[in-house]
């Protein structure tokens, strides 16, 4: 993982007067890896991205992109960016806008035209961006990310405000990007979609990385309770006395287990035979996990 790191951030610090900013952030993204960057508003996600892009001077720390120092021409050429809710000039057409980016990146214009096809904007390419839907604008934004085959792509809230179908389309593009070997970092609030679409999750809280691991590992480490819901054929009093927890209505009982004693408790349940009519296991949600890491050690 060390040798094919396309982003290597170490000890990066940028404080703003008073609040905000990031402090001592260390992160790594490998080629072809999809990393989700989670955090509340103001947790430092955009600051981190802008610092890595060289748009924001940093106080301390080092960053290298595809082995090149931040600020070098090589590093600049190796990184692509999709800002949050970018709106291009409404008077230009999608093709004109993408061709401008191609010209600035010194990529053949043919590549820009091919990319419009690829993101599904072929029919709308010669219409003004002002007539585009939000999903189409984001797809145009993704098209410019693909330009010049970047080693690293930073996507800031790429799916915010999109409908489920547009969101799905966008993630298909992100997957394709990663499959081509680009390391992708996605800042997001949309927790549910992160689950299936990323290899690793980094959580920022007040400018610091409080978690950075694959999802399964984060769950294991957090030791979040797993809830088990039982339904009795008649009255659930016997089940309630046995397992505790709380009663939902006359016939149902819900209680929590940990990852360690889950199997033992389940064996107890199955041993009861027909005294249990139905069983439901509710794993901790991503929201719970996120809340666990993003609120750890906070006074409230």
């Amino acid at each position, binding site marked *: 993982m060390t040798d094919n790191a396309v982003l290597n951030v170490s000890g990066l610090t940028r404080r703003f007067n008073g609040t905000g900013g990031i402090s001592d952030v260390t992160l790594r993204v490998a080629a072809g890896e999809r990393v989700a960057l989670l955090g509340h508003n103001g947790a430092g996600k955009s600051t981190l991205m*802008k610092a890595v892009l060289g*748009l924001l001077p940093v106080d301390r720390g080092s960053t290298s992109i595809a082995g090149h120092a931040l600020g070098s021409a090589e590093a*600049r050429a190796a*990184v692509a960016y*999709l*800002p949050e809710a970018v709106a291009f*000039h409404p*008077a230009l057409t999608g093709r004109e806008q993408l061709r401008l980016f191609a010209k600035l990146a010194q990529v053949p214009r043919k590549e820009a035209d091919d990319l419009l096809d690829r993101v599904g904007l072929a029919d709308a390419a010669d219409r003004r961006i002002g007539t585009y839907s939000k999903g189409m604008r984001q797809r145009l934004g993704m098209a410019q990310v693909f330009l010049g085959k970047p080693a690293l792509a930073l996507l800031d809230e790429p799916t915010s405000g999109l409908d489920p179908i547009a969101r799905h389309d966008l993630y298909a593009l992100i997957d394709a990007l990663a499959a081509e070997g680009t390391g992708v970092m996605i800042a997001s609030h949309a927790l549910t979609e992160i689950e299936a679409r990323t290899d690793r999750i980094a959580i920022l809280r007040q400018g610091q990385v409080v978690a950075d691991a694959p999802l399964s590992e984060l769950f294991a480490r957090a030791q979040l309770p797993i809830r088990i819901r039982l339904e009795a054929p008649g009255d659930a009093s016997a089940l309630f006395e046995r397992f505790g927890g709380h009663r939902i209505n006359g016939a149902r009982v819900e209680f929590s287990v940990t990852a360690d004693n889950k199997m033992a408790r389940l064996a107890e349940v199955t041993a009861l035979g027909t005294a249990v009519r139905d069983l439901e296991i509710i794993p901790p949600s991503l929201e719970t996990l996120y809340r666990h890491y993003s609120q750890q050690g906070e006074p409230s």
Partner: protein
Amino acid sequence: MSPGRVLAIAETEFRILRRNRWLFIATALLSVFALALTISGASTSGALGVDLLTISVASMTTLAVYLVPLVALLMSFEAIAGDAERGSLALLLTYPVSRGTLLLGKFVAHVAGLAIAVVIGFGLTGVVAFAMGGAGPESGLALLRLMAGSILLGAAFLAFGYVVSGFSRSVAAAAGGAGFVWLILVVLYDLVLLAMVIWDNGGAFSRQVFPWVLAANPADALRLFSVTASTEQALATGMGAAANALPQGVALLSLLLWPVAGLMLARLVFGRRVP
């Protein structure tokens, strides 16, 4: 700063100027006002003993002093704040494009747009005056001077627009700032100078300082530059006294320096801005 990238930005900006009809509006605005002044001036030219175009160049100079800065500011106030508000400024700057390249590209496109509006708008008047038999080589030259001076004045106010845009957090704030700059430099500046001249009552200020202060403002520099063309022009505008008190070329120098100084200031302001 590569010429290819400057040109790519300029091409796109010019397209935007055309698409959002600014080019058409600016040209139409200047044409209509210039033609109206010429036709209304047709009745007085005989009485003053000068040809029609001389009169209309004098009137158009006053027009240009007000209108050209306004048109220039309207073209440029959105340049930086608009891209920032759309989120495309941060994106553009992650490409291998410097802030200087971006600014210069926009400037090239906007100056080209302004030049087209000025040449067509004021040129139309020249054609009309010529057709009516009211133009000669001398007044034709005065018209060319006015055109060149107007383009330089516009270039200065384009740069001022970028400065305002670079400072502004939003497009709305930039629009307000641009209006303020226009009011100060084009309207209030002259009023204050007028008040001082009256108060001074022909003293040292009026004779020695006033002409220089006048030339320091690009809008007034256009008045001075335009009247020094001929004594007839000086008579028609009443700016002769101030123009004569200055060494030759001061007004032109002011018109040439302001666009450069303005662009440098805009680059400085832009450079301090974090997208």
